[in-house]
């Protein structure tokens, strides 16, 4: 009932073009350069602001769950204050970029109410479905290019590690455009080709830009493989990281993006820069990009 209400209100906010906007927003964030360099702006920054700043992504998680007090002291899980519902409700707004969500108090409020409801959800480090987007500069055939690496936390041995899940690189995407269906339908090897010793197979290679049309329906280009290939061939050379952000799908029916806000204010550090209501069933397709 409550979820329905949130969904309805959320839909109202988003209008009818939910999926288009969502994909656009997610993809746009890749194309754009970092919001700001990751540095502490001003030396004048006072201590109160440094306390308020969400200094680590881990602090974001602890604040989200209310597992630490306002000074960053960890709360004993036996303490009634630990994950306290009221305190969570009261303090969660500090995790939003108020320059964006100060103007959208409704969405922020629905989110807070929903995640602190009785069937409350907590974010955990090893809970899966949260990813890091590392935007980096590489040299591709001698030219500086921007490339995005998607990393995820994978359990291994006695602990866990960050692993490369996917790559977004425009040069790779250009190689595999979403082709026109009628054009696609023109490219195939007829079913009796085998009887002619596949004498027609040269057609696949005559037009390399559409070579993949001759692949099985289940074919999906694997950008990570391409990436490693280019690295191994020495065509792609790492330069430096430009920015880092996080995409969190772990919370039931919500997606949010966490970015670094470098400013001398009590609303700084790792904050929610984008929040979208997405029912669980709709997350599946989106997750294909983050965890192919």
């Amino acid at each position: 009932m409550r979820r329905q209400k949130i969904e309805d209100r959320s839909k109202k906010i988003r209008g009818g073009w939910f999926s288009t906007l969502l994909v656009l927003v997610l993809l746009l964030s890749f194309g754009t350069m970092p919001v700001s360099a990751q540095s502490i702006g001003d030396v004048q920054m006072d201590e109160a602001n440094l306390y308020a700043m969400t200094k680590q992504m881990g602090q974001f998680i602890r604040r989200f769950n209310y597992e630490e007090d306002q000074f960053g002291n960890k709360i004993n899980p036996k303490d009634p204050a630990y994950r306290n519902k009221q305190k969570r409700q009261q303090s969660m707004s500090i995790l939003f970029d108020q320059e964006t969500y100060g103007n959208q108090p409704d969405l922020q409020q629905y989110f807070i109410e929903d995640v602190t409801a009785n069937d409350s959800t907590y974010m955990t480090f090893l809970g899966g479905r949260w990813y890091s987007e590392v935007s980096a500069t590489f040299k591709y055939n001698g030219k500086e290019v921007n490339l995005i690496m998607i990393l995820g936390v994978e359990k291994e041995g006695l602990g866990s590690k960050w692993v490369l899940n996917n790559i977004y690189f425009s040069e790779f995407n250009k190689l595999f455009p979403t082709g026109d269906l009628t054009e696609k339908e023109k490219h195939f090897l007829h079913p009796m080709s085998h009887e002619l010793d596949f004498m027609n197979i040269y057609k696949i290679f005559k037009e390399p830009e559409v070579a993949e049309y001759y692949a099985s329906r289940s074919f999906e280009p694997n950008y990570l493989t391409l990436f490693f290939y280019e690295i191994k061939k020495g065509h792609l050379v790492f330069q430096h990281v430009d920015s880092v952000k996080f995409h969190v799908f772990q919370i039931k029916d919500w997606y949010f993006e966490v970015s670094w806000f470098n400013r001398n204010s009590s609303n700084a550090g790792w904050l929610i820069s984008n929040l979208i209501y997405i029912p669980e069933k709709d997350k599946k397709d989106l997750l294909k990009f983050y965890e192919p």
Partner: protein
Amino acid sequence: MKKILAMLAIVLFVGNVMAQEEEISFERKQAIDSLALEKVRDLSKYIKIVGSKETAWSEANRVIDRAEELFMSNAEIGVSSVASNNIKYYKVRPYLEHLMRLNYDRVEIEWYNIEYVSDLQRQPDGTYVGVITIFQTFRGYDKEGNLAYKDTTKKDITVYVKRKETQIGGRMIGFWDVLLGDMRVKETANK
């Protein structure tokens, strides 16, 4: 039957030991956090001593040795400024020596009273990894006593915590080996 029971007992025992290894009580975790924080504070103090122009050269070198001992052997310090995203990598010793040789007449290094200690996560080999965030203000003065350079940096320091045992005086001593790892220093322009 007896054999099976004995086997079962061994399995249970081993399982129990492993569970113990994995579940560290809140109080013990707090003690480990404080220990890690202490190492970072020690480093802060060493940086202050090395940076101070009043420290004799031989004394500074001895302190650099001690500071180096706080780190894993392969630890790196990645420094970036507001002007460039490019991270400059230093090994610990050259980083501290660079600090010792800075061409200011007087140097002030202050640490903010804010220290943030992350949760400890285990890496695949079982070693715990955490990050401690601290903030520092650096001021360099020229011969005339004028402020020549000033910045505030956020330092994110990796902390590795490993349970180890050693024999001392004929008995086994279980201890937490805390070593600092890579340190990310985000420098900013003086404004």
